[in-house]
């Protein structure tokens, strides 16, 4: 635990010291030959698109309501000589349900295996937002939490201890007020640390109190790891299998686990109607 806290501190100090020299170039839509892929996930209405625009220089429409972004938007930026592709995912409350927008987000984090997944969380509604954060941490270690709307939390007289949060979650937590551009530099620093592997996370794992469930997950995960080489999220896939998720069952059956599912290629409505 102590070594862990130390890495976090290193990250924190680096974010503040080495990154005023950071060279950020907003590349807009010019995405070719990127070094890293970064996904932006989060609940609806937490400022994902605002952050996306801040980093890429694009003008993706930002809406103060759920459902504004239902497809993946992509953009790019370079940071200290490395080229990053940034993918703005639809806002979702959970990765467990079945609507198309949530599937897009889930499939990208799961199958697209981005180098970094930034989960944007609303500081004024932290508990509810953490549900998604914890689910993402089940899928990937390479995550950063952007604790956005920290200014609004202050106005509401809420204080969020981001160090305690980072300790509990085991991934970097960056407080932000994205609308004012505050915290963008620090976010970039954290993204770079995780992307380059300088920061190794020990993400929080959901505690399944039920022993039978835990055994089932571990057994299946073991088998999955044997079958699919370096599947980083075997436990999550196991869980989805236990839940009877049709898409994941299909992916295992056809051995397409680990292949990116492109947005837009949905099973037709009529097909799913028949299901």
């Amino acid at each position, binding site marked *: 635990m102590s070594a862990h806290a130390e890495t976090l501190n290193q990250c924190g100090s680096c974010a503040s010291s080495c990154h005023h020299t950071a060279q950020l170039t907003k590349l807009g839509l010019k995405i070719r030959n990127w070094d890293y892929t970064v996904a932006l996930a989060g609940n*609806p*209405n937490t400022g994902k698109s605002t952050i996306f625009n801040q980093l890429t220089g694009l*003008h993706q*429409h*930002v809406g*103060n*309501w*759920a*459902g*504004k972004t*239902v*497809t993946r938007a992509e953009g790019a930026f370079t940071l200290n000589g490395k080229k990053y592709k940034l993918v703005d995912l639809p806002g979702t409350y959970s990765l*467990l349900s*079945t*609507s*198309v*927008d949530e599937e897009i987000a889930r499939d990208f984090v799961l199958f697209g295996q981005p180098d970094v997944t930034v989960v944007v969380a609303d500081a*004024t509604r*932290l*508990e509810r937002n*953490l*549900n998604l954060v*914890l*689910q993402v941490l089940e899928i990937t270690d390479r995550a950063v939490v952007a604790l956005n709307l920290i200014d*609004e939390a202050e106005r*509401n*007289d*809420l*204080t*969020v*201890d*981001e160090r*305690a*949060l980072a300790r*509990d*979650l085991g991934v970097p937590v960056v407080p932000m007020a994205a609308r004012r551009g505050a915290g963008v530099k620090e976010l970039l620093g954290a993204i770079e640390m995780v992307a380059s592997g300088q920061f190794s996370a020990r993400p*929080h794992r*959901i*505690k*399944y109190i*039920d022993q039978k*469930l835990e055994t*089932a997950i571990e*057994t*299946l995960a073991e088998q*999955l790891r*044997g*079958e699919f080489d370096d599947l980083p999220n075997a436990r999550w896939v196991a869980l989805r*299998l*236990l*839940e*009877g998720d049709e898409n994941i*069952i299909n992916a*295992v*059956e056809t*051995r397409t686990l680990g292949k990116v599912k492109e947005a837009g290629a949905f099973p*037709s*409505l*009529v097909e799913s*109607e028949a299901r």
Partner: protein
Amino acid sequence: MTNNPTAILDAAARFRREMGDNLHDKLTEAIYNDAGQIAARAVSSGEHSSNKNFGQFFDRIVTSRWFGFPLMILLLTVVFWLTIAGANIPSAMLGELLQGTVYNLLHDFASSLNAPWWLSGFLIDGVYLATAWVVSVMLPPMAIFFPLFTLLEDLGYLPRVAFNLDRLFKRAGAHGKQALTMMMGYGCNAAGVVSTRIIDSPRERLIAIITNNFAICNGRWGTLILIGAIFIGSTAPPALASLIAATSVVAIAILGVIFTLLVSAFLSKTWLKGEASSFSLELPPYRPPQIWQTLYKSIIDRTFIVLKRAVLMAAPAGAVIWLMSNVNIGEASVAAHLVSFLNPFGLLLGLNGVILVAYIVAIPANEIVVPTILMLTLNMAKSGLAQTGVMSGLDDDLQIRQVLTEVGGWTILTGVNLMLFSLLHNPCSTTIWTIWQETKSFKWTTVATLLPVVLGIAVCFLTASVARLTGLI
């Protein structure tokens, strides 16, 4: 143990049976439990949460049973009133510049080059004039309407509207989120159709896709605002004209909501039977709008993008209209043949042949309906009129009204029915394509395309018949 996919899936199925149905609940509970503990450790709240109370007070009013709807209608009316009253003068100025000064300059230039009549006609009277009309008719109202609408959106008002409408959608057997996709449709129906992805159930999603066309899109607001101003507003005393015109546009928008609900109810009781599913709708906090960013966003992202699309569509449409009006088959032009062929049917609906041809030409983009109507009307009566400069003098609402009534033979019924038909007709080709992309179903794409036209024909026929029977026209 052999590790192959089938063995893994079998094992999963076995575990699933052992554990029973409450797996999902157990999982959700575990996640909530952890989230609650972590949040409790990280967040501490102070004494005052005044901001929240202020928001809650506001929410009680805007979503209240009594004030919710009247407030909604009032806000919409104010937005349109500002748009119509404000767009008048800039529209006239732009018209004078583009259809007057620039148009004449272009013709002078062409004749100084001794350009053949068909070339200058095709380029200036066709391509240029259609484009100029789209710009002068659409730019000023859009430049006022979009920032106002975006401001309401930024404030967080739209989810409140959705909240108010949720009850009605549920009663219609549709998904409450359909109110949100309808809000998207008010910008662009193609975007609205894509946004139905937020609806989980395929049944309710299809209903939302089919009825999205009843949300008036960017391309149609312009038509409604203009026709509302010159045919409805002008019946009122000048002081009230803009207000009455705004009210007529709001009435059409409300009619659109009523049609959305009726058609949704119809579909959910016939072809797409089922119960409405429930969902939780978050009312986002009121956020102070960023005025400059809103202006930038709505002018660059919406006004210019919509205008660009309109101009891109108008230029070829202008060329097509000019060719149709100048290529003759026998005695009359192609356009004349088409118009006179469709005229009896059009008149039966309280419209006319020109309007129906315009709606065919405008399938790629609703934005060009009014310019097409004006050009066709003038070309039909070309002998004498166009050459005497009436065409270039069309620079304010009054003159447009004059041309339509005197040259086109329009009555107030034509104006009202054009507004109704603007609400109720086929989606534009982009939206149809999007519906196909999202449903991959020939049947539902056809239903979504044809249902609104059939409704439009029925409604227009009804109003025309009533008007005739009561002797209003």
